[in-house]
Every structure is written in C-alpha cells, then in structure tokens.
C-alpha cells in the first residue's frame, strides 16, 4: 500500500518502535503522531495511515498503550494515545534488541566494503 515509491517499506516492528518512542515524549492523537514522525525524521519517514491505525489498536489490545478522549489541536474530539508502564518496558527491550541488530548490520556492511 505504499503510496510513495520513494519511501522504502519499514521492516517489521519499526512502526511500533517509532510509535512507542514518539508517545514516550508526550501523549498524542493519530494525526499528531503522523506529523510528529514526519517532522522528526525530516520527511525521510512517512507513516502510512493504512498501517498506523491497525498498529495502534493492536498495541492497545496488548496493553502497551492506553487511549482516552481528548481534543485535537484544532479543537475537535479525538482519542489521545499514551504509553503504559508495560509499553515503556516493551520499548526499552525493543530498543536494545534493535541496537544490537543495527550493530550487526553495519558490521556486515563494513566487512562487505573491505
């Protein structure tokens, strides 16, 4: 469902990490999340709505997130998502494992260059 061929597909789990990391800064609503990730990544990463909402629901179900009624920046009713303690723990574990993966990844790339 990639709408923009310039953007590569993210690997599995990446979207979750980004959502969790973003929500760790402050609770946000759906559209806010999209904008935040786009901004922080300097337009390099764009979250697709097609993946965002199912992912949010999955994480709600798993207890990583909580949602409450709130008001958007434009004053419309929406749902605000925030991290739970379980979400924080999950994020920390995932970040460690990602970092290890990246380390391995870059070593392989470096070896290939040499």
């Amino acid at each position, binding site marked *: 469902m990639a709408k923009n061929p310039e953007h590569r597909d993210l690997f599995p789990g990446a979207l979750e990490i980004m959502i969790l990391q973003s929500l760790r800064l402050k609770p946000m*609503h*759906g559209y806010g999340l999209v904008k935040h990730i786009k901004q922080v990544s300097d337009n390099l990463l764009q979250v697709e709505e097609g993946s965002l909402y*199912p992912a949010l*629901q999955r994480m709600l*179900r798993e207890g990583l997130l909580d949602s409450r009624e709130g008001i958007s920046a*434009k004053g*419309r009713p929406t749902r605000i998502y925030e991290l739970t303690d379980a979400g924080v723990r999950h994020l920390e574990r995932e970040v460690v494992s990602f970092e290890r993966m990246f380390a391995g990844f870059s070593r392989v790339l470096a070896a290939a260059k040499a």
Partner: protein
Amino acid sequence: MSLFRRFSRNRRYDDISVSIQEHLDERVDELMEEGLPRDAAERAARRDFGNVPLLRERSREAWQWQRIESLLMDLKHVFRRLGRSPGFAVTVILTLAIGIGANTAVFSVLNSVLLRPLPYPEPDQLVSLRLSAPGAPGLSEFRDELRLSPSMYFTFATHNRVFQSLGVWNPGSASITGFAQPEQVDTAQISGGILETLNVPAFAGEWLTAADQDSHGLGRVMLSYGYWQRRYGADPNVVGRTIRVNSQPRVIAGVMPRGFKLLNYDFDLLVPLALDPVKEQLAGFGFHGIARLRPGVLIPQANADIATLLNVWMDSWTNGPGSDPHFYLNWRITPALQPLKETVVGSIQTVLWVVMGTIGLVMLIACTNVANLLLVRADARQQELAVRSALGAGQWRIARELLLESVTLGLLGGAVGVGVAYIGLRVLTAIGPGQLPRLSEISLDFWSIAFTLLLSVLSGLFFGIIPVLRYLPSRHRPTLLGAMRTSSVSRERQRGRSILVTAQVAMALVLLIGAALMIRSFLAMHNVDPGFSGPTSLQVMRLSIPATLVPDPTSTLRMQHTILDQLAAIPGVSSVGFAASVPMSGAEPGWDEILIEGKNYEGESPPMRLYNFVSPGYFHTAGTRFIAGRDFTWPEIDSVHPVGILSESLARELFGSPRAAIGKRFREFESSPWHEVVGVVQDVHENGVDQVSPATVYWPSLDADPSAPAKVSTWRNLYFAIRTNRAGTQSLINEMQHAVWSVNANLPVTAISTMQDIFGQSMARTSFTLVMLAIAGAMALALGILGIYGVISYAVSQRTREIGIRMALGAKRSELVWMFVRSALLLTGVGIVVGLGASAALMHLMRTLLFEISPLDPITFATVPIALVAAAAMASYLPARRTAAIDPVEALRAE
C-alpha cells in the same frame, strides 16, 4: 460472549471511527490552509488516507477473535447453501436424527443400567452373598446359585471379619386390611443388617432396629415412598400409626425415600424377618444375601472368609437329631460373591451390548449413505471448488468449509436426534420390558448428551472426510478444465461410492443374520411345549390366606375349596384349580429330596426336587397332560390320604417309565408317611421355555406335615387358575373379586393376569432383543438397498452418453441393463463375502441369547445372503431399466 465484552468492543469501534474522522478533518484543514478549495482538499485527504472502511475494518480486527468470526462467516454460508437445497438437507438431517437418536436412546439405557453406579452410598463396597453348590443334585441344574439359609446368616453375621454389615431378605406378600378394600401388597422381609448394608437413610421416621427383629415381639414395619404416597396420601404424620398387616396391627417405623428399591425389587412394605436362632436348622436355603465390604477388602478375601465360615456353620448347626451336619460337604458349597451391580443387572448385560453394537452398525450404514449423498453433492460443486482453488483458496480452507458443512449436518441431526431419543426413552419406559432392571433410573443425563455431541461430530467428520479426500482440488489433479466434458464417468470417481456400498452390504448382512438368528430362536422357543396349553384363555390370580386370619389348616383348605367353587360358578368358566406355583411365575414353593420305597440311601444324598402343591382339577385347567395315572380327588385331599404326582422326567429317572411309577411309594423324611404315586404329568418349563424343566413332585395341597406327621399343613399362598374364554376381560376380573369377597371380605386378590402375559414376560428378553435386532436389520436393509439404488441410478445418469454410443454401435438394451445389474451384483457379492466373514466372527457374541440355534446356523447363513442378492438385483434393476428408455440420438446430444 459477555455483555461487557460486547460493550467494550463497541466502545473500541467508536474510538477508531472518531480517531480516523478527526485525522481526515485535520488533514483537510491543513490542505485548505495550503490553499486548496474544500472539495479538492477532501478528495486529496481521502486519497492520501486510502480505503477508509477497509482501514477501519483492519483496525477493528485487533479486537476480534478472528478465527471464530471467519468460522461464523463460513457457517452462514453453510446454512445458506443448505437452505438452497432443502430436500437434501432434510433427508440427511432426518437420516442422522434417527440414527443418532436411536444410538443416544440405547446408550442412555446402557449408561443408566450398566455404567452408572447403583443408587446407594459407596456402591463399590456392596456385594451379593452368592453361594454355588455344584454338588447339590437337582438344584444345581436348575439354578446357578444356592441361596442362604437363616443359620448361614447368623453364622456369617457373627463371625465374619470382612464385612461392615450383612443381611438376608426375601420378597413376599401380605394382605393389608383396615382400608376400604383389602389389598395384597409386595413386601420385602428383611433381616437385621439389610438397611445398614444399603445405608440409605429413612425419608421419614427411622430404620427398623434390632428390637424389631425380635422373634417374640411384633416388630414395626416401614413403608416405601410409593406406598406412602398411594395409601396415605403422603401424610407426614404416618410414623407411629398402626397398619394391619395380615390382620395384625404393626407400628409404622418410617418411610424409605423415593426410588429406594431392594436391588430390583420394588416393594410396598419392609417387614422384619424376625428370625429365631433357637428354631433354625442348617437347611432353609431360601434367602438372598447382601453385604457391605469393609473398606479395602476385596471379593477374593471375602470369599476366603466365607469359605472358612461354611465349616463353622456345619459345626455349629444341625438338621435335627440323627442327621449328619457334614452331609453338606457333598454339595461342595463354595462362596461366589459378586459385585451387587452384577446381580442387579443380571443377564441383560449381553442383550444391551448386542443392541448397542447393532444400533452402532446401523449408524455406520446411515453415515455411509450420507457420505454417498455428499459425494454426489461435491460432484456438482467440483467446478466451483476448482475455481476457488485456482483463485488462491488454500486446500485447508476448502477442506474446512466442506467439513464444516458435514459437521453442521451432524450436529443438526444430533439436535433432532436428542428429541428422537427422548421420545424413544419415554416409549421404552412406558412399555418397558419388565425384565429390564433399573428401568425407572433410565434418563437422558449429561453423559447421554455428551455422547450425542461426540457422535454427531464424529459422524459429521466421518462422512465429511470422504468427499474431502475425494474432491479436494490438488495441484496434481487439475480439475478446472475438461472435467465436465469427459464422455464417461471416470472409474476412479465411481470407486469411492462402490466401496461405500460394499461396506453397507457387509454391515447389513451382519445385522440381518443377527436378526434371523433371533427369529429362529424365537420360533424354536415357541415350538417348545411349555407344559400347559391355551395360555390366552387361562386366567391366573394370586390369593393368600394368612394364618393370622384363619389359623387352622383344614379350615383354610375348606375356604380355598369354597372360593374355587365360587370361581367355577362364574358364567363362562369351564374349569378351575389352584397350585402353590404356576409356571414362569417365579414362585418356587420349595426344594427338597424324596426317598423312594425299597431303595437304600446309605451314604448318599438324593437329588433336590422342586415341590409344588396342587388341588384336584389344576392340571386339567392349566392344560398339563397326564402321561399316566390320574389326578388327585377331593375326597383324597379332604381325608389327607397320602398320594402324590410326579413329573414325567422324574418318573423316568426313578422308575424307568411313567407307567411303572404308578402305585410306587415315596416320602420326604424317614418319619413321614409313604405317599403313593397316582399320576405322572408332562414336564413343565417352570422358569421359561428356554430353561430346563426341573424334576417336580406335586403334593396334595392339604397334607400331613412332613416333619410332624400327626399334624396337617396346607399351602396358604396360592395361584388360582381359571379356564375361560373371557380371560383377560375386566368383567371377569370384577366377578372373580366378588367371588372371593363373597367368601371372606378381608381377602385381597393380586397378580391377576392371563397365562399369556406371564408367558410373554418370560420371553421378554428374547422378544426385546428380537424386536431391536429386527428393527435394526430392517433399517440396515432399507439403507443398503437405497445405497445400491442410488449408486446405480447415478451411474446410469452419468453414463448416458456412453450408453448412447453403445446403442448406436448396436448394443442390445437387455445387455445394457444387465451390465448395470451385474456391476451391482458384483458389489453385493463382495459385500456378502466380507459380511459373512464378519458375521462368523461376531455371532458368537450372541450365543447366550440364542436358543437351540447355533451362532453359525447354516440355514441362516445360506438364506440371508440369497435374500440380500435378490434385493440388490431388484434395487439395481429398477434404475438400470431406465437405460432402455434412452434414445441414442438424444443421449449423444446430451450436455
């Protein structure tokens, strides 16, 4: 799903919608800020977002139990498809409902009778105190157990080390007076220990106590729940009141709870036996014994203990001065205790397992029929399935859908089947074969329902898996193209159905042979001369004159004679008589030996003989033929003239021939007077036509007391036999009652039935098995024929083109018909060979149910297959004949 889950799920759905809506609105705002007009902005926002409903659905899925939801979806399709072919659905569901219903009903009976524990606390500890006495001649051929004597009870109760409690009991009857009409009720005479052994607390009041068993007092009695309801209208104040039992006032100690029975015996009144140890001897083997084992004690230990106690018994009791107490060593009495449940269930066990197996087989046949129908249906869907497979449906996905359909059919059939079973059980308990033990306990319980559920699912999977295996589109077998244009049905496709039909024929053959063997047994039993004639015109009633009402034996006989005269005076009555027991009534007046004149019995014990006590005219009334000699006369009876009548087999055994027996003399004890043989009558099958007829001695109903010849004794508990064409009518029964009451208004009359009813009861087990097997056999035959018919007519319809070509090439019509009939006969032939093998292996399971017929009866094994072949030929000829009506031109143009 709980309301809460639903509610919370709906809240989640709302959240998703709100979130997405806000997302879109915010995006639109942003785009408008960038200068786009509203409608363009909305379009762009939606385009960027993608398919909104799809995304909403995807997001919702996180909250769904996805497998179930998609299963529900499939289920909806299944119902839609079934709804589109209601004929198919109804046929299958009804077939299954009958099959599953019959199985559930039989299983419920099996479960209630055989599997469920007895309705007493800790039933595993209960045993029946059975003894076997293979060395007791006469008795051992007639009965497989020796009952207990009171002296045995005293010995066992005092000295045993293995039982918590034990007791003896006997069924009896008593007259109850003091109400509007006298009534004869069924009593259970119990010793101490019986209630303690069964350990069911009284519903009201208390148990009989040791004080009630005192032989010098008049102990209290207990009521059954049913009698308390019927006679006292469930009056709660009944405990402590008096009831006149055999004209004696007895205090009511309590009421036993609903459903309490002594083993299978449904009594009205519990009466203490009040045995007196002072008066008891070694003999008197007339009581049933039950006991409760101590925890941890097993039957072999208990047997060992009783074996030692039998020696103690012989050492401590006597049969009177001069008798040898160790004489019973000859009888080789050994304990043969068995779990009480086995005693209660008795021989019905084999019947029930055979019926269960039979019905199970019918179910299998029904399943194969359904599988056949499903094969045809899957045939029609083959292209659809192929298309779906080509579009990417997984094999498992398609298999799941097919199986879901068949399991749904199975469950629907099971649901209707529970109704069928319920009705079947209601009918069964209403008409219930009297010999079926624990009949009142039969019900559809949790296990029956679980059984039904399991059977429904398993049968669904069974007949569902066949089309799945056959038609599951696989990559190796492209079926999308061409399948419809093959000129003739592939052999492979026909083969599945052929195997099913062969299996059906084999199973049907097994059932039919079983049914035929039962029919032959039944006929053989009907050919036996039971020792009486014309049972439909023979009316029987029981009447007893308690000693408390008329103490003197001679007056008792006079009263019995007067009643006989009154009965004889009823219009339409041709003859009357009475006896202590009529055949197959289960009453056994007594067992003892006789000594014949001129024979030295030094050191040997003569065999036990069955005793009966009869009036003049009884044999004539019952239709029992005299082989030699004559009947008793009233003057002989009135004057206590010592005469006797022997059964034919006994006369032959003792004197060589019936004629030689006339004039010879015999007696019971050394001290009793010699009795002259005046007549010999044909053998009577006392315990049913399938049982040996015992050697019987008929004594006059009033006779010198054998143990005290100076006194006379009479038999008080009598069966009156009345020969009349009016037998069985209510008007006759009323007149009989009035005849009795005209003599004494305190005499109750019971057990009024025709000899035919008693006769039928004794055949109940055989006829029950016969009916069940016949029903199963008929169902199997019908289903099998239907199967053959279906396969051949389907083959004919599929091969229309081929037939056309053959006809165009010059094949004769009769040859074409024969071609189909031949293929059906081939299937039948294979089925019969398999079925004969299976029958030969299975029929020995029925051995105990058969009478004078071998389980491998050659006539049955020859005729049933012939009949089956004839039926198969017929079933295939009908559809095959349709080929004759085919027009070759039309046939070639078909499709």
